[in-house]
């Protein structure tokens, strides 16, 4: 019974990692950029939620505002920081995103506060329901349900809309997509918009179980999401989702099952497993269709 609860926690953490990894993978597959500032999108979303609630906006509307805030922040980031760098090499892009990330962290620390700000989540979200002998937290279950909805929604978008099909095509051959008259700027903006939305959703699910925002809120989960994208295959969307869930499940299960004297080595064990996966499959579990920029 404890195991079932742990499993639900594991899948819910995996869902957050999967959403974040997917956002990173979408941007990488299209512009060849590993966006170090992805974690800050998550943090921005948290602060927007905080501000919106403080202004007395109802909870559901505040969540919508926070999602929109993350999406807009992502698009603005592309416009201001990455668009002028278009065509630059991978290293310059990487350094740019690193700079954006550091800058935003400083802004949060000095402009808002270095200390964690509590977010009052609705009571039902932090409570639990007992099903016979099992008590299941609402937060983790909501988290699983929403992650799955988001993954299905994204899949439908990529499969059935012209923009979604164009994004899949652009990941393989961007020039030819432009030759079809489809605007490169719009595809890139959509990629960032989606990555922002996913980061925003991940932030909401993260907060549902932690209820506080601080300037480094996005750091750890996005670090895990990076690892997930690498395990899954850099630039591969399915790989990112698989990697995210796998990492979340392994982390929580190790946490639950390891004897307490080995527990401090949990992250070392996880990272060793990652290295082992990469030695067996250097391009990840589900390699990207076309790793033209690596």
């Amino acid at each position: 019974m404890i195991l079932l609860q742990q499993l639900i926690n594991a899948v819910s953490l995996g869902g957050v990692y999967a959403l974040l990894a997917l956002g990173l993978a979408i941007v990488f597959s299209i512009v060849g950029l590993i966006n170090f500032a992805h974690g800050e999108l998550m943090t921005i979303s948290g602060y927007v939620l905080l501000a919106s609630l403080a202004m007395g906006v109802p909870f559901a509307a505040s969540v919508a505002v926070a999602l929109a805030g993350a999406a807009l922040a992502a698009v603005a980031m592309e416009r201001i920081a990455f668009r002028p760098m278009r065509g630059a090499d991978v290293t310059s892009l990487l350094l740019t995103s690193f700079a954006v990330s550091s800058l935003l962290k400083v802004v949060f620390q000095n402009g808002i506060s270095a200390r964690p700000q509590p977010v009052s989540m609705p009571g039902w979200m932090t409570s639990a329901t007992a099903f016979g002998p099992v008590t299941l937290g609402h937060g983790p279950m909501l988290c699983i349900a929403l992650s799955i909805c988001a993954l299905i929604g994204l899949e439908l978008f990529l499969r059935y809309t012209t923009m979604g099909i164009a994004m899949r095509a652009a990941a393989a051959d961007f020039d030819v997509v432009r030759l079809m008259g489809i605007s490169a700027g719009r595809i890139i903006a959509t990629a960032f918009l989606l990555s922002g939305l996913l980061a925003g959703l991940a932030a909401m699910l993260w907060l549902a179980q932690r209820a506080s925002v601080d300037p480094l809120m996005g750091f750890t989960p996005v670090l895990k999401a990076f690892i997930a994208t690498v395990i899954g295959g850099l630039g591969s969307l399915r790989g990112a989702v698989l990697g995210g869930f796998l990492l979340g499940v392994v982390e929580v299960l190790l946490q639950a099952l390891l004897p307490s004297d080995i527990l401090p080595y949990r992250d070392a064990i996880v990272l060793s497993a990652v290295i082992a996966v990469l030695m067996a499959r250097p391009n990840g579990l589900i390699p990207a269709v076309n790793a033209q920029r690596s």
Partner: protein
Amino acid sequence: MLEVSSLAVRYGDVRAVKGIDLAVGKGEIIALVGANGAGKSSTLAAISGLVPPAGGRVRFDGEDLAGQPAERICRKGVVLVPEGRRIFANLTVAENLRLGGAVHHGRAAAAELEAELLDLFPILRDYYRIRGGHLSGGEQQMLAIARAMMSRPKLLMLDEPSLGLAPQLIDRVFDMIAALRERGVTVLLVEQNVALALEIADGATVLANGEAVLSGSAADLAGSDLVREAYLGA
């Protein structure tokens, strides 16, 4: 319809195209021929906006396209079928065609055009839900042409459509090009297979080392000593 003047293309220090002139009239098929590395693909890349021209003009229906982005040039009706086909291998035939028609608004018009093209290329109807990567070279070439036709081009530019195809498939592709002409499409055709290109074209320009060395009607070129010695093996 298309008037290219003093067009130049450079890649760093490499001068791939050194100021060529080229004219294509409405309804014509004009061939651009020459050896490997002569600058044919670079010329098409510059016209289509994939690489910015280093100099010169590309006038199309009276407007200068030089330096405009590829997506805008496509929407003006100048569409390139690139060398090596470059269909989207991970997308189905249907999805490839849908992207080709993405510039149009209005589903009905796109569906109607697609139905016409599937009549013209019946093999694509058979493979409609199959991924492009599973098609043979010849089928991929048909798909690449049909995909470009989905945007209703006024000028279709084909870069070596015969490349890597078996002889009888080459004939089929050229039959298709002739069929497109019947439908009123203007074609700028790049070919290394000079004999075949001169058979179908109205006029032709011969490129060598990035320069236009000869240009005239297809019949005149087929009879010229230079072309016969250098390219027709006579």
